[in-house]
């Protein structure tokens, strides 16, 4: 049975393009132009994954509300936020709406589909009880589960978005090596400007520091990028 991807996007052309791409990729697609349509449909049947635009027709932040309602219906449902502006990522992330990823709309379709695929993989992995541990990366207190796309620090789960996880993964795989911003973007399958990457890194640090205030493993190498130090 095909997985059902819901697209909530008020711009018809974008919506249809996304729908066509997901359909081509073998997903079933339902697309909605506003929150009311989406919610009534979700009430009947939950999708397997939702891609939600933040501004929906006459509701500039209708996406937030939709996300909250959707999360209330299902705790595991993967949700991807699409924003028009980079800076909105900060706002969305800051809201802690329980979304799994935050993306800008200029992300290319193949990248988007890669993320959707990844998120489905994670869902599958989480459903499989205690899968093979070969995919684990351990760096001191850090444990990265690439299959479930989950990070742990001192055994505590650190909730990272997909982008954040891929960045941490890229950094921690080769500790001490400097990863440039471009490398981080490639790893995360995103195209972002420097300031957005900086704020992503800041947010990663903050999330780890929430678990361990002494966390200082992500170092800035000014002018070059970042590196993981143990």
């Amino acid at each position: 049975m095909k997985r059902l991807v819901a697209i909530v996007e008020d711009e018809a052309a974008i919506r249809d393009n996304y729908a066509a791409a997901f359909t081509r990729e073998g997903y079933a697609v339902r697309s909605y132009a506003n929150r009311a349509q989406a919610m009534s449909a979700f009430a009947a049947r939950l999708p397997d994954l939702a891609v939600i635009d933040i501004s929906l027709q006459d509701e500039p932040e209708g996406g937030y509300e939709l996300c909250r309602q959707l999360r209330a219906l299902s705790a595991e449902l993967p949700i991807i936020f699409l924003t028009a502006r980079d800076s909105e990522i900060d706002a969305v992330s800051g809201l802690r709406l329980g979304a799994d990823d935050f993306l800008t709309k200029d992300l290319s379709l193949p990248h988007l589909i890669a993320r959707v695929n990844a998120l489905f993989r994670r869902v599958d992995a989480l459903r499989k009880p205690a899968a093979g541990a070969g995919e684990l990366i351990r760096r001191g207190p850090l444990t990265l589960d690439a299959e479930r796309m989950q990070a742990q620090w001192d055994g505590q789960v650190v909730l990272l978005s997909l982008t954040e996880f891929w960045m941490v993964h890229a950094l921690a795989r080769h500790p001490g090596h400097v990863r440039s911003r471009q490398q981080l973007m490639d790893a995360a399958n995103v195209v972002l400007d420097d300031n957005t990457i900086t704020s992503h890194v800041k947010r990663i640090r903050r999330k780890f520091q929430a678990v361990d205030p002494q966390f200082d493993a992500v170092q800035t190498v000014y002018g070059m990028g970042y590196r993981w130090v143990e």
Partner: protein
Amino acid sequence: MSLRLKLLLLGLATLVLPWAGCNYAREMESALRAGEQTSLQAVSQTIAASLQGRTDLLYHEAPLAADPQADAAPPDAVAALAPAAGPYDLKPIALATAPPLDGYSEDWPRDPSAWAYFRKDAHHRFGILSGVYERMLYVLLEVHDEHPLFDAPGTNTLDPATFGDRVWIGFADPQGQEQQLFLAATGPGAVTARRIETGEYGQRTAVLEPRVHGAWQSTHDGYRIELRVPLSMLGSRFGVLVDDRDARGAVPVSYGTLRSDDLHTLGRLIVADPALGSYLTQFLQPGLKLAVSTPDGRVLARADALAQSTTLGTEAPLLARLYRRFVDRPGERQLLESDAPIYDRDHAAVIGQLEVTQTAGRWVRLRDQALTRMLNFTVSTSLVAVVVMFAFAAWLALRLERLRRASESALTRAGIETRFPETEARDELGDVARAFATLLARLNEYTGYLRTLAGKLAHEIRTPLTIVRSSLDNLDAEQVPESARAYLARARQGSERLNAILLAMGAATRVEEAIGSAERVDFDLVPVLSSALGAYRSAFPQRRFLGELPAGPVMLHGAPDLIVQMLDKLIDNAADFSPADGAITVRLLLAAQAAVIEVDNPGPPLPPQLAGRLFESLWQSRADGDSRPHFGLGLYIVRLIAEFHGGAAAAGNLADGSGVRISVRLAR
């Protein structure tokens, strides 16, 4: 010319008041003068009327009845007596002083017209000059004589054999009787007249007439006699006869103004009665001069009090004298004159002329008083006007200066200062200030709009671009003929470029947002810079980078990410404007309270007009043909980050002109 000076000049225009005052004073003076002239005319006519018919006073003669000729003569003949002067008439001038009786002419006035000349022939001629001083008639006689001859000394003056040159004087006494005296001298010196008296028995004796005396002096061509005769002796007629002898006792050549046979006078003595002077004196007032003259203009008598000052002193106050200097026209006569004819008793003929002269003192004083008051008033008015205008101009200039300064400093680094002085003022200057304030407010809105335009535009374009790009992504997955792939690739290239443009356009907005959410930490600037330098060396392999960093740590409180981002922009800029393999120097200097980052790059110097605008938003001076999108935001971002760190950015040319230095001060 400054506003102050202009208004000062305008204030000086009020000096037209004193000027008009001076003119008015002159007019007033003319009117006063005319009035004075009229009254003087009345005075002179009154005095002249009182002298009407007083030929006795005017011409020192007995009442007309005493003159036998006048008896018979018709009235106009009497009238002819005075004006129609005969050739033998003697007209004494009025003497200022009594000449000493010494026989010399130097003490007499030099007045050739006063001389009367009589001649018989080329060898026999004399000149006579007569004058009156007080009650004396003075006579100066210059006789041309090729053979001057004195009487033989020590002999009987009546012995004809002893006679030398002699001079006869004939006159009518106050009673009208003809009298004769003669002058004879045995040598130069004093001489006294003698009268020939016939005794009871017919014997003749020469009797001295001590009242008539003088001096006899020889001259180079004859002799000179100076003589004094009391007017009291004289009537209306007077004459002189010269007996010229070439040898003692010879028959003389007689000529002169006496008949040579009986020594009867031929001419009259036209001289005023001594009483005329005192008569005139009674009309005299200080500052007045009275003069009576014959109809042909010879002065008979005068009474002069011109020099006497009028009752109020002429010593005017200094200010008044200063004013007078402006008002008086040079050469203007300070005297008033008035003439009145003196008629004979029947008012038929003019027997004399009265001249009354008055000094200007009286009306000048009046004028000075009025003038002083008026000029004091107008000059002080002008002064006040000038001071007030100057003060007003200064105040106005001050306000304009404030406006000017405000308008010059309105465009600040931080934006446009829309507050403006003087907007509360209710006058036109206030209107200007309000208009300025409105203009600046609109300009502020406009620049604010411009500043956000890029960000807004980027946002608005992003959605259609997303449509294009996602459509292209979908098209990639479709069955597209190979021939169309090229177009697809181009479309993708174009959309990528559009995306890059959007990123560049939104850069400033993102930096502003980043600054807004930036957290300040304490960090050492030196490793940050050296680390960044290392990155630039690999990022720009065609440029050389020189770091001049201090050995010790340089602690800063700020956002190192932003500092690096700022440095990125500076290095971008330096690399863009420097030639390949140019050496870019990054220098960190420590100043008081500040750390200064300097980035030097070789390359073309900055045009001078650019210096202040380099760090403004949307300003750029890049050459065309650069494929990367630029919106003049790089150095604006530098400025934003510098200001976030409490500092400022400045650009200038290197001292040797080989390149450009951009320096950023960061507060420590």
